């Protein structure tokens, strides 16, 4: 009986970890958790973990022919800008704009706010 309960619970717990694609054809991985940690405990460690998650989401989305979710490229742009890498930031903002034309006005503003590294 105990074994059965453990097995059922394990299935329940692990099913939440399986890759899920939303009704808008998006894959998010652990995005909400790593972003929450950035807000809860700001710093090098949480930024790095979130950055890795963002890159992982791009990889998996591309591999599965899915659109990269809204904001993923843009957040990488913001992280690059904070590191002082304005060129990388602009490139990411362009990628966001190319993926979502609705973001053009905003991304153009973000790019023009970025003096390019000489």
């Amino acid at each position: 009986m105990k074994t059965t309960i453990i097995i059922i619970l394990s299935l329940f717990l692990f099913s939440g970890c399986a890759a899920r694609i939303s009704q808008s054809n998006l894959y998010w991985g652990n995005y909400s958790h790593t972003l929450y940690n950035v807000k809860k405990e700001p710093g090098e460690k949480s930024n790095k973990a979130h950055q890795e998650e963002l890159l992982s989401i791009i990889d998996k989305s591309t591999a599965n022919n899915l659109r990269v979710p809204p904001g993923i490229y843009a957040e990488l742009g913001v992280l690059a800008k904070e590191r002082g890498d304005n060129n990388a930031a602009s490139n990411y903002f362009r990628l966001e704009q190319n993926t979502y034309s609705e973001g053009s006005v905003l991304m153009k503003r973000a790019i023009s706010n970025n003096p390019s590294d000489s």
Partner: protein
Amino acid sequence: MKNIILPILISLNLLVSGCAVNTISKAEAFPQMYIEKPASVLVVPSINHSTAADAPILYSSTINEPLSNAGFYVLPIEVTNRFLLNEGLSEGEMLIDIPPQKFADAFGADAVLYVAIEKWDTNYYILGGNVTVAVEFTMKSTKTGEKLWGYKNQLVLDTSGNDNGGGLLAKLITAALTTALQDYVPIARNVNLIALQAIPFGKYHKMHNKDQSMKLPPSKVKK
């Protein structure tokens, strides 16, 4: 006898249809959403009515995923928040009186989502406790400034962990819930998910413009 059967049947019919009035559909509740079909949404900093000072910042990390999954393009919050901050607009309260139309030009937003955090609490009682997250959503058009959609939701997670004789099962659940106490993400997630079931889906959703007749949970609709 015949004379009273018809009136009784009519009365019963009125009673029954009277009960049905409470279960309205998305299109009945939010007709403007289907007319305007906003694609891009600006999520502004939350208005904080809770006792937790960090609630708006923590909440902001939970909204991109579900709102995007509901089919909208969520203008990257990290970018828009920085622009708003540059204008001195760091808190939700400061944004209430700004006409939503201003955000159309500034950010290319079709709509603005205002979030009021009513509760973001851990409550401790003598024999246990609970975690409560309560949020009220309002989406406004940047074309007209009018409300397009609204919803209110509260989730209370009881963390009392009373041993109801469930043995191993109860202990495992208690352990999981204790862990959840340190992390509001699952609770905020559920609040968002439930609320966003009540929104007319945006252009990226499979059911976009096909969900008019989906019924809303009656008690929590805010027109």
